């Protein structure tokens, strides 16, 4: 069998070896070009795969809906859902009011009022989770053809969910705020101290680089600072549960309980346009004629 296999498949073996060598060389020598080729050709492949993905997600949602609605205490389920919706809306309103109050106070003293442009939002449904175990992501049913691009922020009425990292024509992948590889500029609402919000391996989040003199304490809300592209100022990220202050450290950090439970999120809003102009936009902005 060994001899027969060697003789009959020597051609296939050669092809496989050549292909493997070409791929490895391409990966080592031209990673950028290979990446763009894979991304370019990946469009149609992603489009084809998105069809069975939607079908399976639809069937799954229906089964989950039937189970949740009829089998597992229909009345309680609906009431709970309504209360959760109301709570999310109230939380969002509360956050917005707090933010508005703080902003009004600051702006009144500065005597310069600049109206914040409202971002355009795209509603999308969650149709899947990450295909691997290394990242915490969700898959949305809207993609590049709907105007979604990488680095756009994703929210629910309760707060920040994550950031778009990849798109196909009809789907997009959101890296969740609880993923350790995600970083969002955050601001403690009460003290106005800024920091970077990063996910943790325990499925929570952490606000890093808080100044040592900050008076942050557990219970303080953390919102987006609006300093980076993707998220406007004032969107709820989470609530501080613990402050970590190490001796001789330059900064302190805080553990956050995220406002949105990413494992239960079903519908989201993608922020299509951010009111914060990018560096490129700022530089290319026409100056007013005097």
């Amino acid at each position: 069998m060994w001899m027969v296999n060697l003789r009959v498949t020597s051609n296939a073996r050669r092809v496989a070896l050549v292909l493997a060598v070409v791929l490895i060389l391409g990966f080592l020598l031209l990673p950028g070009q290979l990446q763009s080729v894979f991304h370019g050709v990946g469009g149609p492949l992603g489009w084809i795969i998105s069809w069975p993905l939607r079908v399976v997600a639809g069937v799954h949602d229906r089964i989950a809906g039937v189970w949740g609605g009829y089998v597992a205490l229909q009345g309680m389920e609906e009431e709970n859902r309504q209360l959760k919706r109301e709570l999310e809306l109230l939380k969002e309103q509360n956050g917005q009011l707090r933010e508005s109050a703080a902003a009004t106070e600051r702006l009144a003293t500065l005597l310069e009022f600049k109206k914040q442009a409202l971002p355009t939002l795209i509603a999308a449904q969650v149709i899947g989770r990450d295909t691997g175990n290394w990242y915490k992501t969700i898959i949305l049913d809207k993609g590049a053809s709907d105007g979604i691009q990488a680095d756009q922020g994703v929210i629910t009425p309760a707060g920040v969910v994550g950031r778009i990292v990849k798109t196909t024509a009809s789907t997009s992948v959101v890296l969740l705020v609880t993923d350790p590889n995600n970083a969002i500029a955050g601001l403690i609402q009460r003290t106005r101290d800024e920091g970077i919000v990063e996910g943790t391996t325990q499925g929570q989040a952490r606000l890093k680089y808080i100044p040592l003199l900050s008076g942050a304490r557990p219970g303080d809300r953390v919102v987006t600072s609006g300093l980076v592209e993707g998220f406007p100022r004032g969107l709820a990220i989470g609530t501080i549960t613990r402050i970590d202050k190490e001796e001789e450290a330059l900064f302190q950090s805080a553990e956050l309980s995220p406002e949105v439970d990413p494992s239960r999120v079903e519908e989201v809003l993608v922020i299509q346009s951010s009111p914060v102009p990018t560096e490129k936009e700022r530089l290319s902005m026409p100056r007013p004629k005097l």
Partner: protein
Amino acid sequence: MKMVIYGAIIVGIVPVQSVLLPHLTLWGVKPDLGVVAVCLIGLISGELDGLLVGVAVGWALSLFSAQDVIIGAMLKGSLGFVAGLAGRQMVYLSPLVLVSGLLVVSCLVGLVTPVVLRLNPQQDLWWAIWNVALPQACLDAVIGGAIYWLMWSQFNIEQLMSESRM
């Protein structure tokens, strides 16, 4: 026929992995059907099929994950190629051998992946072993063993292996 099966695997693996498998987790970790499928194809059909299907499966799975597309395709492609080479050295493959092999291979892939992906320092090698690699390897081995046992009881695998390589 083979092309249809491979096509169905490449297209169907993403919905199964992203929609259905999150319900089948061990300590929050789901199995990687890509590893199982590519290993089985490599073992049964040889290194060329293993390599090509591996690249396609890795690529498709990476399109729906935050994972780098090239790294995903290269990892699964290499796995299929190595499985093909290993399959060539075997005349008889029992489910027990396959389960042990999958356990080791999945563990090794789980060790290599965080290094290649250059993840956040929180996700160090020790974390990767205990929180992802080991549970995933156990699940991969069980699922791979079950699929192989089903195939073994229905078809003559040895004949299939030699036929598919002709």
